[in-house]
């Protein structure tokens, strides 16, 4: 009897839960194309509850669809129905994987929703290296070309940033594949790689003398790191940060998009989200649908040029 009552009660919930209502009436899936625990995941995980609040309580579920430099998730997002129930958390890699020929998915396959954050890159060195400054590193690299090892997700942002430094300083690195920041940290702490693309999330380890920040790729020094010089002031004109935003599959209805955009703007102002971004050394950098569309277009052209400059352009 108990089973029967439970079944009937379940059935009732089951059917009533499905009354048609205005968007959004069911959970929204946010595709993060990297493994959980990576920096992209760390930024969108606190963003999801803020977005959820702004959407009036609709559940926002993060789906980590990682693999092959983020291209698996990109393909999955592209193939999802354009009904506003699938969002795609993206960063600059979408341009790079397209131009380096690793994937066929381009930013133009999506509708921009909003840009939320930018994380400046910091050139980070292993504690086991003998240099303490950018200058010593460059001198060493000039003396031993191709000997300094850099851990990077090949073909993605963590590969491009050191490559830009390489070009600006006229030096040559050796690249070793370490997908994702978490793996690179294990390797650099053990001294198995010399350099990597880091960011402010690793400040704790620098304070504990487990890592060395050589230079930051911003216009001005970061208030969190007053002692770390910018690449620009050292004479290497490299400004680089990884920008993260939300996209929706192409063809998502305009009213749905505007609803999402509004919620996104509200969520970006959420104090809890802001606090967790500050802890991760990331600037909340909100752009609406139009602004983000413009940004993506410029960024795409920029990344195409970058790929060409670095000899990685495949299309």
């Amino acid at each position, binding site marked *: 009897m108990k089973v029967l009552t439970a079944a009937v009660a379940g059935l009732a919930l089951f059917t009533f839960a499905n009354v048609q209502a205005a968007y959004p009436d069911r959970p929204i899936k946010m*595709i993060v194309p990297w*493994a959980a625990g990576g920096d992209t995941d760390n930024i969108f995980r606190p963003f999801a509850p803020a977005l959820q609040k702004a959407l009036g309580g609709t559940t926002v579920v993060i789906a980590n669809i990682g693999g092959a430099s983020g291209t698996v998730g990109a393909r999955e997002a592209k193939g999802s129905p354009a009904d506003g129930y699938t969002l795609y958390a993206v960063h600059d890699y979408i341009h790079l994987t397209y131009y380096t020929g690793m994937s066929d998915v381009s930013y133009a396959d999506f509708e921009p929703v909003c840009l939320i954050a930018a994380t400046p890159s910091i050139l980070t060195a292993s504690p086991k290296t003998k240099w303490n400054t950018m200058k010593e590193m460059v001198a060493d690299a000039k003396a031993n070309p191709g000997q300094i090892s850099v851990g990077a997700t090949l073909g993605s942002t963590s590969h491009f940033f050191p490559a830009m430094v390489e070009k600006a300083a006229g030096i040559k690195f050796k690249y070793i594949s370490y997908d994702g920041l978490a793996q690179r940290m294990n390797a650099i702490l*053990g001294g198995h790689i010399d350099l990597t693309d880091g960011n402010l999330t690793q400040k704790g380890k620098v304070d504990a003398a487990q890592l060395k920040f050589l230079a930051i790729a911003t216009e001005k020094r970061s208030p969190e790191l007053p002692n770390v010089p910018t690449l620009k002031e050292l004479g290497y004109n490299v400004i680089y940060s990884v920008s993260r935003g939300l996209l929706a599959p192409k063809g998502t209805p305009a009213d749905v998009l505007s609803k999402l955009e509004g919620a996104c703007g509200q969520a970006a102002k959420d104090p809890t989200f802001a606090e967790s971004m500050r802890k991760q050394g990331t600037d909340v950098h909100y752009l609406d649908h139009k602004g983000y569309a413009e940004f993506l277009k410029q960024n795409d052209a920029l990344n195409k040029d970058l790929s060409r400059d670095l000899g990685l352009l495949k299309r």
Partner: protein
Amino acid sequence: MFDLLLAGIENVLHLKYLVPLFLGTLVGLIGGALPGVTITMTIIIVLPFTFGLDPLQGLATMTGVYVGGSAGGAITAALIGIPGTPSAITTTFDGFPMTQKGQPGRAIWLGIWSSCFGGLLAGIFLIGATGPLAAIALEFGPWEYFSLFVFALSMVAGLTEGSLLKGLLAGVIGLAITIVGSDPIMSVPRFTLGTEFLRNGFPFLPVLIGIFAFAQLMTDIEKMKGSEHAAAPIKAPPLTVSHLSVLWEIFSRPFLLAWSTLVGILIGVLPAIGGSAATVMAYDQAKKFSKHPERFGKGNPEGIIASEASCNANVGGSLVTIMAFGIPGDAVTAVMLGAMTIHGIQSGPLFVSQHPQIAYGIYAAYLLAHPLMVLICAFGARLFLRVVTVPKSMLIPNVLVLCVIGAFALNNIMEDVVVLLLFGLVGYALVKARFPLAPLILGLILGDQIEVNLLRAIMSDANPWLFITRPISGFLLALSVASVLFALWQHRRQKGRTREVDQEPDF
């Protein structure tokens, strides 16, 4: 460290964590007690339930399942003589005779208390050793990791029952499954035959769930007879016992308890050798050290103590390996690791120092799961026997539904469910061809890592001799060769004495 642990325990004592831990332990005990449902299976079933919880809640649940499952096997083993999980097989040797002699309470509580103490002793090791081992793991470069994985594979292949050749081949099949799909470095599609479906390769958890769940469930289904109704519930005999005398029986043999625990821990730390190897080895040793080896198999309490203490100590040892190295040692820990990843935790050398709250939360959950388990058994041991007799015709469809949810919810893509079906067929075929599954699963777990570390090593330094000349790496490779040679020698010696029998797959 001690205050961190205290804070961890205090944290886990909150209802928010205590309830998942309790439920996990309960489900683990039931799963462990159900014959034909292994710990791995129970963890696979519980996995999707943890996706929506916060990380520590999820991991507390899984830890509970792991601890409970390892102890639960003893209940059915002692009372009805069927091991609830493969690792409880040695508990049947002495537990069941003791029950037949009219002492079921003594048999089952010897098992439960030994599990508890073995597990708790291993907990001390877990907490003390993870940190230092993590420091060593940090020094491991790509060469050392590569050699470590090769060593693990060769050792498991060598330890399998039956043919060494098939053990090795099973391991290589596991590796071959991982090379399908985009290559791990530059994402070049391999063996995809031009299809989009194969581009993602075969994601590891759906493959694992498919192989395990189907290999096991189908073996059960084979034995079903058309229409079969539940066997009449087994009448549980009264389990009254003097706990003091049982505790005295255990503590009057401190050496046995300590040694069995140690065996369990060591087997647990070594990647890929499961709980059943630990219990068999501990039982064997207990018999060798005993003054009265002839009493074994006839209801000797020493047999139960050795078997159960090593079984739960093995859990502590396995947890060390995933927490310090970030490498799952066997299928159970692989699914545990999957659960961690879903919660945004990358285990590995930096895990304990970066997420002390979660790491010590896991320690605390592990320690607390043991008294919880004893408590649950005190109230529920008899009830479990009733659950054990749920008709398979109801159980199996629902287990399969949970497998689908587990496979789907991981990435939210339908392809993963298709992979589940595909590898269900493969798993069943492999069991029918009598391939051991343990090396295959290990190959599957380590495949990508072996490739990535091999390429990393060569990208770091083109000199291939470094694999041999770097001391740790060279030592590990030498051990691999030795373990295969040893297995070869042992198989030769045993030839003729044992013949391959159509045995239940041992997970």
